[in-house]
């Protein structure tokens, strides 16, 4: 099993463009697909898109990111790609509901981002786990679950 111990750079960098383009034509660019949560890992064992089992063991001062180039050889390359992340979008009814929702999500250590007046929660396990916890706020109408395009779900 091959162990990758450093990040060589980013696959989008101009200096790697020609080499990666050439390898891509030969189907020789292999990909490690990670969830957003797994980007925080520095040491993991994983199967690539091509089915190879590889290991990553980075020093503590390096972090994985979308497009991280783990290997670039004459005949092959290995690139990190991050899976699209799912978010639950929640609209609080008013300021009081927003405070409750913010407190609730913080208390559960959920990863969130703000979009205008809505709160978006990153789905790191299964969506129903989050919705079950939010059931009370949703049922009393303090919070509305919105679809990706902002409409009530």
């Amino acid at each position, binding site marked *: 099993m091959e162990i990758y111990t450093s990040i060589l750079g980013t696959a989008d960098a101009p200096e790697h463009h020609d080499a990666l383009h050439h390898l891509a034509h030969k189907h020789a660019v292999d990909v490690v697909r990670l969830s957003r949560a797994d980007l925080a890992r520095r040491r993991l064992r994983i199967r690539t898109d091509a089915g190879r089992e590889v290991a990553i*063991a980075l020093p503590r001062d390096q972090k994985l990111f979308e497009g991280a180039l783990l290997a670039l050889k004459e005949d092959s390359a290995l690139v990190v790609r991050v899976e699209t992340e799912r978010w639950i979008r929640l609209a609080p009814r008013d300021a009081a509901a927003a405070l409750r929702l913010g407190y609730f999500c913080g208390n559960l250590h959920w990863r969130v981002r703000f979009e205008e007046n809505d709160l978006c929660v990153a789905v790191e396990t299964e969506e129903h786990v989050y919705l079950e916890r939010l059931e009370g706020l949703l049922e009393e109408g303090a919070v509305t679950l919105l679809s990706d395009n902002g409409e009530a779900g």
Partner: protein
Amino acid sequence: MGIGGPVGSGKTALIEALIPIFHERGIEVAVVTNDLVTKEDARRLQAGGLIDPLRVVAVEAGACPHTVIREDPTLNIAAADDLEARFPDLDLILIESGGDNLASTFSLDLVDWWMFVIDVGQGDDIPRKRGPGIMLCDLLVINKLDIAPHVFVDAASILSEARDVRAGKPVIGCRCKGAQTVGLTDIADAIARDLLFRQVVA
């Protein structure tokens, strides 16, 4: 590597049971223990004769134990750095969290991989509670399988339910004390394979 879980679930006992297996496999280990306001767990390991006492360091959290493994793991990082400097041949540093609730998780700035230890004596509904510790750990260990009949828990059922809620992530049942242990080799194999990248003979 992190080892978390509620008070009394058997984290220290599991470490005591794993140390001889690591020794047999030539895996050099050291331990950082976390306690609220004492060095109880460190003293227990140091006195146990299983490991060089100098390879055991205590961190006193002084607050909720998760704060020093997740929010600000500086004290534990410093303790691990210190062990690594004093024992350069180490393969593995076990960082045992103080007993905490089901929401406790480890920062990946502190550990590369972590297990969460619960036990059947806490009730058969623990996996169903889906705390972050249970859902997000790399390996869930359900300890004290031997006492299951005495606390009216169906061991097979709690294991099966835990596997369901974790959607395929590993769960190992364990008995780490007594003449007949269970699951220890599987736990050591998981650590060797997934964390140390060693070949494990099937």
